[in-house]
Every structure is written in structure tokens, then in C-alpha cells.
């Protein structure tokens, strides 16, 4: 039924008259906004950050027409940001890939081929590489935006089928340090609490996160908490004053890379003023230094002597005072509940794991953990970095269910679940992201599958790695919905895939919560869901390699229709066989349970009955976490059962201040940092195709402190050249009191070769987490011209 404007006006006129009388009219209309029509609303998650907002896609006559939030959801309470509101508009975009594209050489033009041809080529190339160069000559590079079913299925085929652990994904670029931080400090990956702590917290400590732009809906909750309760203290620690600072009581602005000194100084004050929780430390805490050497509280205390507030303020430079550090430490320690939140500012660092350890230290020392409003909460950047990649085996060193690859009994569990011979999964971890692309440069990777991500734009120092990806030594398959810089430069074969809401699957967000999105509309003709592609490809691999074990890997999924039955079978295998008994136990959360919920389930959730309540709000707390009761070793209320800490304790780490890999010097006198802008998502292949979002931020600019700009004669809008030891960008200047003096900042979404900031960033990595230091490098800047009219650029 199509409602004409005339009908609509008549209905409005009638409603108006009826409202005078308090009369209900016989048509079922919830007002103009929700005027009755035949729109069907399909519940699912947003895919444009790690918050896990729940929303409903309105579908009419098979087409997406509207979108709204789910007010009952515990993640977003119905609120959405602009990306969440508008992303559905790309679903029918004319640029959607709808047919497989192939070119034998990367210098050739793509030609359209059939799916049969495409799958044959993909299978030939991977089978050929394995036969000729061994299993480790192939690699998978996935995404924190792939569904759990997709990541899980890809890694199953690569590990169980092709026998390589070269399974990685872009979460290495964003979450690896947080993972390593949780493992080393708490003994288990992922946060203890979640978003529910925001509304209970009295002190909110934000460091290395511009959540107002990167996680707008979480920021909304923090804003609400602060505005409704002015006594709540919000502290924002960042070298750049950002939109997040608007609600902060205290903004600590310091030189990039000196935050380890800040965090140690906070610990110094806490101990010096006896604000630590002695009983908590006695009951639950061990102290560690170096790789894993035990020490005691006194030694830890002594190590902090270098971080008196005065000394730290000197190290940090900027405007931070010793008294400010004391004030922050007191608030942190003494509030009823202190909640820390951070993201890439701490993670994308050479000292990323240490920075994570140091923030956990503060929570452990003060006991600001495990109780209402207190948590050490790392925000994830992508919708399924936690659920798909960290939990389902999407990195080179972990198997599904948080199983470290080097543990043979754990490998055997996985082999058994898959019905493949013992020893099938190699014991050696595969190549981590930067090593994998280095291997591409060296011609060691012969065939690579890149799924749902664009490393040509998103790797640090990307020019270096793009040389390798552009070469014909490595055959590259890309699965994606739009052309990207990666399909353009690196791909031999492009396979068009179904977008979100065009397929079924689960995303797991920041707070250990898994949420389902069911297929609501058909993908464009010619595009297929990844799970179908993987299954068909694996079937061909089995033939070409004459390997029945590969057939075994897809046996449970044969013949299932790919829209629902196939992903459901994959989720069942993963959740029932591989999370059962693990800390991320999701065996109580099959599709039937997830579909019944407005939001989803926080693991551990070992039974369906428990999962239906929403699962575990706080890990490790007896009475709140079923595993804490089951795995308890004593009568204490908290049980740290994480497998990485055999002593069942939280570990406080001695970690000194250490500089970033590259410090400004005479040749490159500025710090460069990068970040995410609110209107765009990653490499802009989706958001750049939505006019509202594109126009809001059509290209990148470089933020410069007014003092630096004056000194260099740079005016707003001037074209500025940014050069590091690795590459150069030219973009317009934005002069404002954002970055600290001596620092410049650029958003990283722009695809234009002149403004792709990852040509300039550094590829130094954290030795523990292998995550690159996107956030800090040295550069020089100079004005090259006055303002110029620029055009947005989308591949």
C-alpha cells in the first residue's frame, strides 16, 4: 500500500481533530512518525564501530527504507550516531560489486567472469601454492567487521584444511595490545565489566580515546551520566584536546608518548598517600616485572620513585601540573566507582601492552574493579574484533575459544571438534600482520585472501607494503562489497559479497556481548555471502589437493542454504563445541536464544536459561559469573580463573616510561598522530558513498596548534606538506587549539593518494602484541600554497 501525500495529510488532519476529543481513530497509526504502512522491521546490530548498537532496518517491498534504534537494548538504549542512522543507504549503491572480477596480472584491466570460473581460479591458486611452496605460502587477512561465522570458517579452512596458521586480521592493528594487556594483567582476555558501569561510575577516566567521535553512543552515555550527576568527575587524558574534552572536568594534555609516566605517577600518589586497597592487594594481587619475574609490593613501590608527580609533570611537558596529577590520583582512588576507558591512544603504540598494564595497575591497586561502576574497559574499534577475531581464532597465535596455539592439548580439542586427525593444526603460530605483509614484500606469500578490509590504505607506512601487494608474486583474492584501494592495487580476483543485513551472523562487541543480525533483504544479484564462498572454495580445494581432511572440514555444512541454515550450523559448531567449557562460553546462546533478545548475551553463558537473562555482567565475581562459582579455588568473593595466570591472581606490572619508536628531532620536529572522524568509517568505502557523511568531512586535513601555525606562517585552509622518513601527504590545514604545541594530527579516512596519512605513519610494532605504533611518529610540515579547492576522492 502506497500512502500518497494526500492520504497522509488527510490522516494527519483526522488525527488532529481526534486528539481534541481524546478519541482513538480506527486506523492503527502511532502518529505521523510511525504511520502504519507495510514496513517490516528487522533487528540487528550496527557495523560501524565496536559499541554494538542495536537497531532495526525497515524493509518495504524488499528494499531498505528506514532505520531506527532499539530502545530496549542494553548497549545503545535506542540511540544511534550518524553512521548508524545512514549506513543502510549504501545497500543499493550503484558501485556495489555484483560480479566476480579477474585479472591475471595486476597491471591488467579487470574482466568480469562467472562465479564458477572465479571459484576455480581461487582454488587453483591456493592449491597450487600449497603444493609447490608448502602451506605457509598461503595466508588469510581478515577483519573485525567479518561475522563470527565468517572468521571462524575461514580460519577452520586455513588451519584444518590448508594446515597453516597464517590467519590474521585488521584487529591486529587495533586490539592486539588490549588483548595482551588483559592477558598479562588479569589472566584472561576481555574486560571484567561493561557499559553498565558507566551509569554507576563516579569517576570516569578517559585516556587515549576520542570517544565523542570514535564511539559516539558510548560517549552519549558518559555525557548523560555527567550532565545528570554534575558531581561525577570526568577526566580526559590526551595530547590533543578533542570533542570528548567538552564534558571533562580535567583535561590532562601532555606530549605524545609520555602517558606511561602519567600512569606511573598516579600509582605513585595512590601509594604515597595510602589510597591503595591493602586488603584487596593482600587477597588477590601478585607483582611482576620483566617477562614474568615475581617481585613484591616494596619493590614495586621503589620502582615508582622515578615518578613523583613533579618528575612526571616534567617528563610529560605540556600543561600538566604535579597538583593536577595528585588530584586525578585521589579522585581515581577514592571515588565510589572509577571506570577507565581507552582505545587506540594506548593500543596503537610501541609500548601498547605496557600502557594497558599500567592502567590495569591503577584499578588493581585501588580495588576499583569488580564492583558497580568500577572497571578497566578497553573500547573496541570494530563491531566484531572481540567476538569474531579475538574469540573465534582470527589471529595467528590463537585458536577458537581463546586457545593459545602453542598448547597441544588445546589444539587437540579443536582437532577433535572438527573431526580432523591429531596434529593437523600446526603448532607454530603463523605470521602476525606486519610480518605477513613483510613476507608478501619478500615474495614468500604466494596466495593471499583479503576479506572485508583494505590494507593498502590501513597499514602503517603503507607505501612500503603496497609495493609488495602490487607485485604479481602474490596472487590476491579480495572479498568485498565495493571497490577499495586494495581491490584497485592488489587484487587479482575480486569476489562480490553480501553486506550486513543481506546475510545472517553474529557480532561480539566491546563488552563480551554477542548479538545476532538476521538476513533482512537479498543481496544485489551476483553478490554472495562469504560463508557460501568459503564452503564452495574449500570443496574445490579438497578436490584439487585430493585431501579428504578438507572435505571433513566442510562436511557439517554441506547442502545447507547459505542465508540462514549454513551460518547457523557454523555458529552451532563454534558455540557448542569450541566455546563450551572455555571462559568465553557461549554454549547457552544458540541462534534461537540470540534471536529472542533485543540485544544479546554476555559470556560466559553456559546455559540457555542464564543466557536469556543477558549473561554475565561482571566476570570473576561469585554470584554474578557462573564460572567464578564453578572454578573457585577458595571462599573469597572474587575468583580469577583466567588460564594465563596459574596463581589465580591479578598481576601488577613494573613498567617504566619508554619513548615511542620515533621521537621528533631537528629534521622531523613534530609529533604526528592520527585518528577516526565521526562521520566516516575506516577507509571510507561505505561512508564515502553516503552524501550526508561524505559532505560532512569530504577530505582529510591536518590539525595544527595555532602557535606552531603562526611560527610557520600557516593559515587555516593553506595546503600543508607533511613529511616523515617514510612518505609525504599534502592536505589543508586546520588551525586550532586541539593538538598540543609541537604535535599535528590527521584523520585517516581519506583515500586520495595525496592525503592518505598511512603513507606517513610508522610501522614500528609493540614487541609483545605486534601492534603498530600508528599513533606516534615524527614528521615535518611546511606550507606549500594557499587554500585550494579539493575534490573528495573515492576509488
Amino acid at each position, binding site marked *: 500500500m502506497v500512502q500518497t501525500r494526500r492520504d497522509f495529510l488527510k490522516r*494527519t488532519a483526522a*488525527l*488532529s481533530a*481526534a*486528539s481534541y476529543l481524546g478519541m482513538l481513530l480506527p486506523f492503527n*497509526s*502511532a*502518529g*505521523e*512518525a*510511525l*504511520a502504519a504502512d507495510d514496513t517490516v522491521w528487522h533487528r540487528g546490530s550496527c557495523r560501524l564501530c565496536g559499541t554494538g548498537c542495536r537497531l532495526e532496518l525497515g524493509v518495504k517491498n524488499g528494499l531498505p527504507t*528506514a*532505520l*531506527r*534504534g532499539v*530502545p530496549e537494548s542494553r548497549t545503545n538504549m*535506542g*540511540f*544511534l*550516531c*550518524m553512521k548508524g*542512522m545512514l549506513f543502510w543507504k549504501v545497500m543499493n549503491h550503484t558501485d556495489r560489486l555484483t560480479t566476480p572480477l579477474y585479472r591475471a596480472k595486476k597491471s591488467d584491466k579487470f574482466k568480469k567472469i562467472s562465479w564458477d570460473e572465479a571459484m576455480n581460479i581461487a582454488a587453483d591458486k591456493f592449491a597450487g601454492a600449497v603444493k609447490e611452496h608448502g602451506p605457509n605460502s598461503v595466508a588469510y587477512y581478515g577483519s573485525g567487521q567479518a561475522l563470527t561465522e565468517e572468521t571462524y570458517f575461514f580460519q577452520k579452512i586455513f588451519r584444518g584444511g590448508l594446515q597453516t596458521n597464517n590467519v590474521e586480521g585488521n584487529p591486529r592493528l587495533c586490539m592486539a595490545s588490549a588483548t595482551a594487556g588483559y592477558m598479562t594483567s588479569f589472566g584472561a582476555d576481555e574486560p571484567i565489566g561493561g557499559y553498565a558501569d558507566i551509569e554507576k561510575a563516579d569517576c570516569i577516566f578517559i585516556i587515549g580515546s576520542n570517544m*565523542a*567521535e570514535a564511539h*559516539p553512543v558510548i*560517549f*552519549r552515555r558518559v*555525557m548523560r551520566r555527567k*550532565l545528570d550527576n554534575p558531581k561525577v568527575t570526568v577526566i580526559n587524558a590526551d595530547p590533543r584536546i578533542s*570533542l570528548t574534552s*567538552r*564534558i571533562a572536568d580535567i583535561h590532562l594534555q601532555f606530549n605524545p608518548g609520555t602517558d606511561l609516566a602519567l600512569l606511573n605517577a598516579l600509582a605513585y600518589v595512590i601509594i604515597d598517600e595510602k589510597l591503595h586497597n591493602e586488603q584487596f592487594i593482600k587477597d588477590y594481587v601478585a607483582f611482576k616485572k620483566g617477562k614474568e619475574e615475581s617481585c613484591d609490593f616494596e619493590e614495586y613501590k621503589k620502582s615508582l620513585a622515578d615518578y613523583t608527580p613533579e618528575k612526571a609533570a616534567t617528563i610529560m611537558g605540556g600543561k600538566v601540573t604535579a597538583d593536577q596529577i595528585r588530584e586525578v590520583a585521589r579522585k581515581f582512588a577514592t571515588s565510589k566507582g572509577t571506570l577507565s576507558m581507552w582505545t587506540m591512544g594506548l593500543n596503537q603504540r610501541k609500548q601498547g601492552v605496557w600502557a594497558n598494564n599500567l592502567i590495569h595497575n591503577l584499578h588493581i591497586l585501588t580495588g576499583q574493579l569488580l564492583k558497580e561502576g568500577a572497571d578497566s574497559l578497553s573500547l573496541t574499534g570494530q563491531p566484531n574484533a572481540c567476538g569474531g577475531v579475538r574469540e573465534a581464532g582470527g589471529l595467528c597465535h590463537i585458536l577458537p575459544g581463546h586457545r593459545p596455539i602453542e598448547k597441544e592439548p588445546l589444539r587437540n580439542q579443536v582437532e577433535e571438534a572438527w573431526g580432523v586427525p591429531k596434529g593437523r593444526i600446526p603448532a607454530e603460530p603463523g605470521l602476525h600482520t606486519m610480518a605477513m605483509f613483510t613476507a608478501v614484500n619478500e615474495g614468500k606469500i604466494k596466495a593471499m585472501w583479503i576479506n572485508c578490509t583494505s590494507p593498502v590504505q590501513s597499514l602503517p607506512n603503507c607505501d612500503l607494503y603496497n609495493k609488495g601487494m602490487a607485485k604479481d608474486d602474490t596472487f590476491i583474492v579480495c572479498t568485498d562489497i565495493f571497490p577499495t584501494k586494495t581491490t584497485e592495487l592488489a587484487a587479482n580476483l575480486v569476489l562480490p559479497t553480501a553486506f550486513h543485513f543481506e546475510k545472517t551472523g553474529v557480532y561480539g562487541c566491546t563488552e563480551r556481548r554477542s548479538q545476532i543480525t538476521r538476513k533482512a533483504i537479498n543481496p544485489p544479484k551476483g553478490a554472495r555471502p562469504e560463508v557460501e564462498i568459503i564452503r564452495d572454495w574449500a570443496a574445490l580445494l579438497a578436490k584439487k589437493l585430493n585431501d579428504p581432511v578438507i572435505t571433513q572440514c566442510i562436511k557439517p555444512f554441506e547442502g545447507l542454504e547459505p542465508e540462514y541454515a549454513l551460518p547457523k550450523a557454523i555458529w552451532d559448531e563454534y558455540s557448542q563445541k569450541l566455546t563450551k567449557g572455555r571462559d568465553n562460553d557461549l554454549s547457552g546462546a544458540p541462534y534461537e536464544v540470540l534471536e529472542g533478545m533485543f540485544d544479546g548475551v554476555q559470556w560466559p553463558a553456559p546455559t540457555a536459561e542464564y543466557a536469556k537473562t543477558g549473561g554475565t555482567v561482571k566476570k570473576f565475581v561469585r554470584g554474578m559469573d557462573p564460572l567464578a562459582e564453578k572454578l573457585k579455588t577458595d571462599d573469597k568473593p572474587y575468583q580469577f580463573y583466567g588460564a594465563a595466570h596459574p596463581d589465580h591472581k591479578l598481576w601488577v606490572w613494573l613498567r617504566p616510561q619508554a619513548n615511542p619508536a620515533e621521537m621528533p628531532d631537528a629534521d622531523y620536529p613534530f609529533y604526528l598522530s592520527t585518528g577516526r572522524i*565521526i*562521520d566516516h568509517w575506516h577507509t571510507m568505502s561505505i561512508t564515502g558513498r553516503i*552524501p*550526508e557523511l561524505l*559532505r*560532512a*568531512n*569530504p577530505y582529510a586535513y591536518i590539525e595544527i596548534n595555532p602557535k606552531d601555525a603562526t611560527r610557520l606562517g600557516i593559515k587555516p585552509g593553506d595546503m600543508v606538506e607533511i613529511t616523515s622518513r617514510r612518505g609525504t601527504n599534502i592536505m589543508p590545514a586546520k588551525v586550532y587549539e586541539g593538538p598540543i604545541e609541537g604535535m599535528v594530527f590527521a584523520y585517516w579516512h581519506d583515500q586520495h593518494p595525496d592525503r592518505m596519512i598511512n603513507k606517513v605513519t610508522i610501522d614500528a610494532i609493540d614487541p609483545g602484541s605486534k601492534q603498530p605504533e600508528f599513533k606516534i611518529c615524527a614528521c615535518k610540515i611546511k606550507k606549500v600554497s594557499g587554500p585550494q*579547492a*579539493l575534490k*573528495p576522492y573515492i576509488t
Partner: protein
Amino acid sequence: MRTSFRFTLLLAFLCLVWTCASAQGSEGSASKTGKHPEITEQEKLVACSECHQTATPEVYKQWFDSLHGIGMVKCYQCHGTFENFNVEPAVSVCATCHKKMVEKCPKDQKCWACHKPHSFKRANK
């Protein structure tokens, strides 16, 4: 009642005629004429708020200091962009985030009957 109807009709008529007529007036700042100045495709790449900060400073300030301003709900989220621009957004746009409020609200009333546009303070507060 009979006379009051004719009067209402006339009043409504005059209001509409006046609004539309003034929109025909000379080109210039939006606040004076109610009509947007001519802009090029290039100028469409400037965020609304950037010009409106100076063109309509009161509106900008109301928005900037509001929950929408702090929470980064931008102009285009409610008003759309050039091709789908609405001076008065559809209530369905509000319902994207405020579904429950819209359901609770009397059906003949727009959100801004109670929540002042741009500042979104309740009128009776």
C-alpha cells in the same frame, strides 16, 4: 465558532503567503530572507555548521550547547543534505533515536511543540 473559522483560515492563509513571498525576496543572508544563498557543488562540501556558526549564530549556539551539540548529533542527521533537505524534519527522523518518546507523544503534536528546536530544552522548564 463560525466567525472564528473564517478568521483562522484567513490568518493561516496570510501566514503562508507571507512566508512564501518573503522567500522570493532579494538574495542575501538566510536569516533575513528565509532563503539559502546560492552555493556551488564545491561549497556543498563545507559542513553546514561551519557557515551557520556565523550566518545564524543563535541557532548554532543553541545547538552547540544542547545535548545534540555535545553528543555530536549534527545538522544533517535531522535536516538531511542538499538533495533531501527539510527545514522541519519528519518526526520519523526523531524516532530513529527517540522511538519511545515519539510513541508517548500526542499524535497531533510535533516534537518541537515541547522541545525547543536546536536547544531541545523543554518549553515549560
